[in-house]
């Protein structure tokens, strides 16, 4: 058991390194290259003048390919990290923020790779991979005691509901991270119109498609959580800070979908709603730090 805990951590460590490298590679690929041309000109009086000209160029394709490979490698390692953790604890890896964040990193990488493959664009990785890397840094910052395999506290002793409820949550949040990345790139494109970044229409569509996955998943999170709360706490809705924050997040994405489909909102206004939505996701994710409540056991 102890060996599996260590194996999980080593896999996560290796995945972290791969993610950091992938982040850099994606940024290098997405931002493009800066070409600086310097010319020395001679004037009629015999003096020399130096002329410097900077131009931006498409990012290196090989950097993009490396980034994808590193991300896939990180996803596989994260998967092994999660599986080893499951083997050590004999349950879903969701009993505290360490385990939850491990699974979240895996979900982000998987969802990102799916979107990269479906839309054949790598530039999103320049936003999504740094988010995953940030999550890895957060995991590293957690106390070592959380890495140890411990028994579930009584409130969480419902393996089926915990696995279903929290799995839905991490994949919902992961798809919202992808939609956030699409929204950021959209806003960049809207102002800069860079030829090497994906078309605005595609970015708008990625943001929407990600939400169409995340929104039903978050609905499932709320419903499964309510059903579980009914069994565990005697009430399916307690206005607990974390469940309420999840509801508000769901409502924000509901606003996004309604404005997009009924009022025809596209582009910048929609992208801004996606940014607000992801801010709500972060707030929900870390909400138990600020508010305590019935989900406080998920913290440190």
């Amino acid at each position, binding site marked *: 058991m102890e060996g599996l805990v260590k194996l999980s951590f080593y896999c996560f460590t290796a995945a972290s390194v791969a993610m950091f490298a992938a982040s850099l590679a994606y940024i290098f690929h997405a931002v493009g290259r800066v070409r600086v041309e310097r010319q020395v000109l001679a004037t009629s009086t015999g003096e020399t003048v130096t002329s410097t000209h900077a131009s931006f160029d498409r990012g290196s394709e090989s950097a993009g390919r490396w980034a994808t490979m590193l991300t896939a490698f990180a996803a596989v390692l994260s998967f092994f990290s999660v599986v080893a953790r499951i083997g050590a604890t004999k349950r879903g890896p969701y009993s505290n923020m360490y385990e939850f964040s491990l699974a979240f990193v895996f979900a982000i990488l998987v969802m990102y790779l799916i979107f990269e493959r479906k839309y054949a664009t790598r530039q999103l990785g320049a936003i999504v991979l740094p988010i995953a890397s940030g999550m890895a840094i957060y995991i590293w910052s957690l106390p070592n005691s959380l890495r140890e395999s*411990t*028994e579930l*506290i*009584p*409130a969480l*002793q*419902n393996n089926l*509901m915990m696995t279903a409820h929290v799995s839905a949550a991490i994949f919902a949040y992961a798809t919202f991270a992808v939609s956030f990345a699409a929204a950021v790139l959209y806003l960049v494109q809207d102002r800069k119109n860079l030829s090497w970044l994906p078309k605005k*229409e*595609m970015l*708008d*569509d990625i943001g*929407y*498609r990600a939400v*169409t*996955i995340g*929104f*039903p998943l978050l*609905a*499932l999170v709320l*419903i499964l959580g*309510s*059903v579980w709360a*009914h*069994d*565990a*706490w*005697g*009430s*399916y*809705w307690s*206005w607990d*800070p974390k469940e*309420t*924050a999840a*509801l*508000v997040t769901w*409502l*924000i994405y*509901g*606003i996004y*979908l*309604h*404005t997009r*489909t*009924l*009022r*025809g909102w*596209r582009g910048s206004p929609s992208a801004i709603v996606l940014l607000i939505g992801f801010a709500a996701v972060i707030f929900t994710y870390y909400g138990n730090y*600020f*508010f*305590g*409540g019935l989900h406080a056991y998920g913290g440190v």
Partner: protein
Amino acid sequence: MDEQLAPAAKRAARERNAFDMVVDRVWRFFCSTRVAVAEIAWVALLVLIGTLRQSSVPHWIGDNIPGTKGIVIRWLDWDVFHSFIFMISLAVLSVGIFIGGMLNRMPGMWQTIRNPTIRTTRGFLNGVTPAATVAAGTTPDGVIEAITAALKKKRYRVFTEKVGDATHLYADKNSLGQLGTYPFHLAMIIILAGGIVTAQWGFRELQFIVPEGGRLDVGHGTGLSVELVQFVDTYAQTGVPEDYRSDIVILKDGEPVKSGSITVNHPLSYENATVYQSSFGQAVQVRVTDANGNVILEDALPMMYQSLLNPDAPAARIDLLPVNASLVIIGPDSNPFNQPELDTLNVRSGEMWVQVRSNDLPAGTMPPAAIVAQGHAVTLDGVTVEFIREKRFSLMQVAYNPGIPIFIFGGIMLVAGLAAVFYFPLRRIRGIIEPAPDGGATGLIAPLAKRDWSGQQDFEHLMEQLKAEPAFTIEPKIGKDAEANSATPETDVSNDEGTA
């Protein structure tokens, strides 16, 4: 006679118009997306205010932002989730969902499903990107037949209509998927209804505290009571509780009807009532006698409070009505390493600090108090308190949630509706096929995918697949197109994507 009736008829017409106008305005109000978004945002804001109220945020604001103390005090006093404003907001949102989200969209959606508009215009097809040209050596009817067969293989419904020499074509896929919006919107009303049913006909006792060996009535006309036989808890080496359970007996009119163990995730039900395990704590078994030796209290008192001076010291309090006093008991510090300076009572393990507070005691007078060991008694102000033994109490909840089946039904509908809308998106194609000047047939087909990148990609993908058809040739339309699928003259009755 007509002249006499005319003013009345005019008045009636005027009144009817006024009535119609009001109905129309109310209808439009509830159908407005802007209003719907404002309603959702308003409810979200109220929810946020209500949730933050339970946190330290209001206190932080009051302490750090000058001039906000008054607002913060009102904020802390306002029970948002049971307030009239919140209820009204939910009611308005529900009506909006029903009218705007469901009723108003029904005719257009129904027409798209049952009787879609087949005719289109060349202007539309010429102005759309992507679009595809179709050409064949056969007659237009032959081409239509081949396209229809090809599209049907891709699960499209195909409708055609002859207009002069030309044949207009309309094809769609997943037309029923858009109906998912009805279970989705209806589900939200059902979930709210579940909450109302529970609030109206259910009950919930949050602080159902029973000490070991004790019994407590459930009330609410159930005739039930719960007896705690024993409480068992186990701990990990870190001190974290691994498991705790209450062995209970449920009694109906005093007769045992069901017994079992409850843990946090495994409640026990009998008839409508369900008993849930919430928490636990220390209790103290005491016997209290008055100056004449009459027993006025013999019970286990749950120590569910904390000492005012030391938050780590559990405390119990109970009124002693026969002697017009109250009994306060404080136990040993449960965490001596945390703020040891607060542990001024110095109560050791196996001891209790006991105080009898007479209600007639003059203000400013310290009531008598003493530390008493287990199995011993102390007399204070004529009242003898015997500390018999330490016990445990179990904090349970007893609830009846008649709304839960409604809630679960609503939840399933909600997710199913969303899945139908999002994962079976409506795809539509229009086209015109007509005789070519040099014989054979020619035509244009294009998707109804205004600003829908995925819809356009699907169409292009479909065109790639149709290229393999031997009966006609199909090529992407190349030329000076209007902006991609924008500003089209198409006036279809429903939106392009289906919607949540």
